[in-house]
């Protein structure tokens, strides 16, 4: 097992290396660097100076090697476009907390409500309640979240007048600024949670319904066990296995946030920052953010495979390529 994880971590490292190379060379293949954008009106001399300052005058491969050596020491360079040129890691440390907050509340809402909805749907399967939950879950997973965001903005943000455009939607209740738990989070979290909530509800329904029909449940019933005992000890326990393997891995990628949610609600988090970095051609920032996201996604995959093996002993860690 440890061997398997180590091998996968090495693979992640390799993938990150390739991703970084691809992104770096593609980025630098574009005509027009970060300083020739728009009408900044630099004279050729000033431009050359600027490029020398940021090391852009050196050949691409040399810059890439420089980047790699410092990236290995967790130094991803300094931002080009953020005022004061702070190091990439500082900027990420500054913008990530908001995203993390939204992500964390989303996870709680999505998993909590999704689980309850799925459970109810499975227990009353093929009834009207089941149909409503399933339809809700389907809608939640198919309607894009920027569409839902726009609707919520139209209704609550603008018509009822809870907020101002391009600002946090609802004024923070617990003091000014980034309160830990404020009504600010209400609309973004609701919007962001719809998709994972739909997923959780669907998977819970499917696996609980399957467990309810299983032979061991019939046996438990025949034995005369109470409904509650059956649900808790037999159904839920077994239904949890497929759920955990599918749903837990969603967590890392919820934590890196959503571009659409952040742009739509004007949240200054990682996702919105990624979009502005791309429009500003802020090379070091793009690099840092892409690598961060790639790392979290790879972690998601690794977590999925590890959970499979840990939870279901029938699956063995196989040869090359990992479990399953």
């Amino acid at each position, binding site marked *: 097992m440890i061997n398997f994880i180590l091998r996968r971590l090495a693979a992640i490292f390799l*993938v990150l290396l390739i991703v970084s190379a691809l*992104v770096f060379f*593609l980025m630098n293949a574009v005509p027009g660097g970060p300083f020739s954008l728009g009408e900044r009106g630099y004279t050729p001399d000033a431009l050359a100076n600027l490029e020398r300052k940021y090391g852009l005058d050196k050949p691409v491969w040399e810059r890439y090697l420089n980047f790699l050596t410092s990236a290995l020491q967790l130094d991803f360079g300094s931002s080009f476009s953020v005022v004061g040129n702070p190091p990439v890691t500082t900027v990420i440390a500054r913008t990530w907390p908001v995203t993390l907050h939204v992500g964390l509340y989303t996870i709680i809402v999505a998993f909590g409500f999704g689980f309850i909805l799925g459970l109810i749907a499975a227990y009353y399967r093929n009834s009207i309640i089941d149909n409503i939950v399933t339809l809700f879950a389907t809608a939640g997973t*198919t309607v894009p979240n*920027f569409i839902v965001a726009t609707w919520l*903005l139209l209704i609550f943000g603008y018509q009822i007048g809870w907020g101002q455009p391009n600002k946090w939607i609802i004024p923070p209740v617990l003091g000014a600024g980034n309160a830990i738990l404020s009504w600010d989070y209400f609309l973004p979290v609701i919007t962001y949670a719809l998709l994972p909530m739909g997923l959780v509800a669907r998977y819970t329904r499917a696996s609980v319904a399957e467990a309810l029909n299983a032979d061991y449940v019939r046996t438990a019933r025949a034995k005369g066990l109470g409904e509650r005992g059956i649900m808790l000890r037999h159904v839920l326990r077994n239904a949890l296995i497929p759920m955990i393997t599918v749903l837990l891995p969603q967590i890392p990628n919820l934590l890196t946030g959503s*571009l659409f949610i952040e742009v739509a609600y004007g949240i200054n988090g990682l996702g919105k920052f990624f979009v502005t970095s791309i429009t500003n051609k802020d090379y070091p920032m793009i690099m840092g953010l892409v690598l961060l996201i790639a790392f979290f*996604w790879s972690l998601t995959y690794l977590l999925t495979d590890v959970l499979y093996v840990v939870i279901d002993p029938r699956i063995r860690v196989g040869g090359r*390529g990992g479990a399953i």
Partner: protein
Amino acid sequence: MNGAITLRQPVERRKQRTLLGDAIRRFRRNALAMIGLLILFFLFFLALFADVIAPFPPDRADFGAVRVLPFTHPTYPLGTDAVGRDYLSRLIYGARTSMTVGLLVPLIGFSVGITLGALAGYLGGMVDFVVQRLVEIFTAVPPLLIALFLLSVTGSGLFNIIFVLSLTAWIEPTRLTRAQFLTVREKEFITSARALGATDGRLILTHVLPNILTPLLVAFTFAVPQAIFAEAGLSFLGLGITEPTASWGKMVGNSVGSTIRVFYHLALFPTILVALTMLGFSFVGDGLQEALDPTRSR
């Protein structure tokens, strides 16, 4: 025991049923799927005949009637946008943009993906190894972020969107085809066909592919709304379709701002269309999946 045994013909002649006929019957019994199909017909109709239905060209600006509210102006029933373009016409032409992206991207993706997946799954060995690693690298970053990043390299526009989205659209079909090939490859009918002297190409085209068509078809119906979503999303962020081409996502993105309080129609109509499109495709996809694979229970 009187020796004479009369074999009786079956009394009722059972109507011959084909696999496809069964699937169609199951599909038609599914109310949601039929609703989805209706929505899709409507959208395809809009996209195909946009020039005929739309009262105005999508880029015709009437500066005398800027930001007309819907249901107030006789010439512009759904109002106009910030430069006085008829919103109804732009919504209709938006269907064309969505459908173009939504069909072309999966078509390109599946052509490449099925080829790669078939080669990897059938040949195995070195080819499989290379394809697998390629898939791994491309899945390290979410496809939308890849598209976003690549758009910053290539620039915006309809053609670039299709190109950029196609670059990640091959991954799912590749994985699917490969997995299907791996399971079908071991079946007896393949062994027997090979024993009869079928060549590799013949095996792939006439024996394996028809047997994996069903999951591929279902995957395709889900790939279309994904492409539509990606286009709308990127345009919403301001990185996708460029003016003056009409795109629902762009219309939503442009509308979200301080003026939305009054000019609600700019946001409302395109969002309804995007949501309808996504729901339509997903209903049809779910319906297809259930119809084609009766063993699956929801």
